């Protein structure tokens, strides 16, 4: 949808170009994150897409049309633009701020009113309370949300975001990130996102474009960036805690063991014995007839073959994990409770699978074992979206 071809930006006063020979394609409905150290050209690239900066070389196409041949104002009216310092108009109410582009496009007031209310709800602000406020009455997080709402007002298919969450504290930032991801699940926009934070890039991006010194170093999925960095720069930029970063990327659903043997409190000791023998485990999970988690029993604590009161020795699991928890959460819980296995349950507390430390380690270990011949693990990677 957005196509950059040999794009270059050279300022006359500077020796080296800010952006050199950049070619890439951003697919529709994807979040593409530009990340890199200060001065790498990521913001410059972003601003060339909506022509706030004019390229000195190369071409940029949006849906096949050359942006440089279009009227810049009209081009930008169809692209949402959010910057770090937001830039809300201080002399206008929240309502009028958001109404700006729709008014430019000639919408009627009724439609605008409906849309502003819709947007305010979407970004988590009560419309009646906030519509008439002026920006100086809003908190940092609220200002950001209004900024995003304003950018989305005319429902542009493309959004450009330049460190949009940089000016708020980490807690609010995480919230805003999750909300954007949630939003994206409902309304698939094409988003170009600039950040200097690699963790944010991994969390937010469908694709990540790592830039350095004006050039595109690697343009790939987060997994590839983590598992197969193109060069030492990327490796270092990603950080030596790559393994941990991967853990945050994957959900427990990917490594959990699903075919687990479970026992029912109504089982007899013989049944238990058979199950233990069959699956060669030292413990057995106990669930009720609705497959909801109950607890577990250790083999050693059972008096096989004769133990009528075995169900009295059912222990409770220290903790459980929801389906969408990440491997990082799993590791964290395991370390906290000093346990080696955690059951994974769904919303109804039904047992979905079991995550073990052993599986975790072997999974990560395999991936990094032989870096030269690193193959992507044969697991479908799902992404953590909105907590």
């Amino acid at each position, binding site marked *: 949808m957005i196509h950059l071809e040999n794009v270059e930006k050279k300022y006359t006063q500077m020796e080296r170009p800010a952006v050199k020979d950049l070619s890439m394609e951003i697919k529709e409905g994807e979040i593409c994150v530009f990340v890199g150290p200060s001065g790498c050209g990521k913001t410059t690239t972003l601003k060339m897409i909506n022509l*706030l900066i004019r390229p000195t070389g190369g071409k940029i196409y949006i849906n096949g049309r050359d942006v440089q041949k279009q009227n810049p104002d*009209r081009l*930008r009216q169809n692209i949402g633009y959010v910057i770090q310092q937001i*830039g809300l*108009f201080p*002399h206008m109410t929240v309502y009028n701020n958001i109404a700006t*582009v729709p008014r430019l496009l000639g919408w009627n007031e009724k439609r605008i009113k409906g849309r502003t209310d819709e947007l305010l709800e979407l970004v988590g602000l009560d419309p009646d309370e906030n519509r008439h406020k*002026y920006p100086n*009455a809003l908190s940092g997080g609220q200002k950001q949300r209004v900024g995003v709402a304003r950018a989305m007002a005319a429902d542009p298919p493309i959004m450009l975001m330049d460190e949009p969450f940089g000016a708020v504290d980490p807690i609010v930032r995480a919230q805003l990130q999750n909300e954007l991801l949630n939003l994206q699940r409902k309304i698939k926009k094409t988003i170009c996102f600039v950040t200097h934070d690699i963790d944010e890039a991994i969390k937010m991006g469908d694709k990540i474009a790592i830039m350095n010194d004006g050039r595109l170093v690697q343009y790939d999925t987060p997994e590839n960036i983590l598992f197969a960095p193109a060069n030492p720069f990327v490796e270092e930029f990603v950080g030596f805690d790559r393994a941990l970063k991967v853990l945050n990327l994957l959900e427990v659903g990917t490594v959990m063991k699903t075919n687990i043997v479970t026992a029912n409190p109504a089982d007899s000791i013989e049944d238990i014995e058979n199950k233990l023998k069959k699956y060669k485990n030292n413990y057995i999970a106990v669930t009720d007839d609705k497959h909801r988690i109950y607890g577990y029993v250790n083999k050693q604590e059972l008096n096989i073959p004769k133990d009528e009161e075995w169900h009295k020795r059912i222990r409770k699991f220290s903790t459980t994990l929801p389906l969408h928890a990440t491997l990082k959460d799993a590791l964290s819980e395991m370390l906290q409770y000093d346990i080696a296995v955690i059951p994974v349950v769904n919303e109804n507390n039904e047992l979905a699978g079991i995550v073990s430390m052993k599986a975790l380690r072997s999974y990560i270990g395999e991936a990094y074992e032989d870096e030269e011949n690193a193959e992507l693990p044969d697991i479908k990677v799902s992404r953590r979206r909105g907590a």
Partner: protein
Amino acid sequence: MEFNWSRVLEVLQTSKATLDVKLLLMQHLKLVGISLAIAVIIALPVGIMLTRPGFKRFLPRVMGILNISQGIPSLAVVAIFLPLAGIGTFPSIMALTLYALLPIARNAIAGIEAIDPNIIESARGMGMPASMVLWKIELPLALPVIMSGIQTAAVVTVGTATIADLIGGGGLGRLIFTGLSFFEPELIFLGSALAAVIAIVIDQLLNLANRLLTTPKSE
């Protein structure tokens, strides 16, 4: 000099042409009004123009000249029009207008330059045409400073108009200078006091106007 309060009252009630206070008052206000209006019409657009991308390169030089000219005494400006344009209402208005251009232009430029660039960037980034950015964003936000400049110019012009009589402009200066020539302190006082009152009243009125026009951005 001896001072006689009853003489003051006498002068106030007189209708002798040269000392008709009401007439002189009107003259003074006319001088101020016309000069200020012309100054605003010239200085505002020029000031705004200098902040536009095409003309920004002239800005430092022009600001330099404006700042230097600020020091020039008003008497010099008024006096210089005598050899240039003679005496009368027209040279007076020219002198007053010239003197009022400075604060207006300076504040117009300062007001616009002081706007947070992020606001402009997000406006342009949204696709707002440059003209709309000027009218809907820059001017409203710069308005308090611009008004303050006009306020300054108005007060200064009332003052400069007081000496416009030297080149035949009339106004309350007539009372003052007549008093000086004929050693009549009452006239001097009357002219001075009235000019002072007008200056203060105009200042307060414009102050009020400034506050009313500024949007309630703070709660």
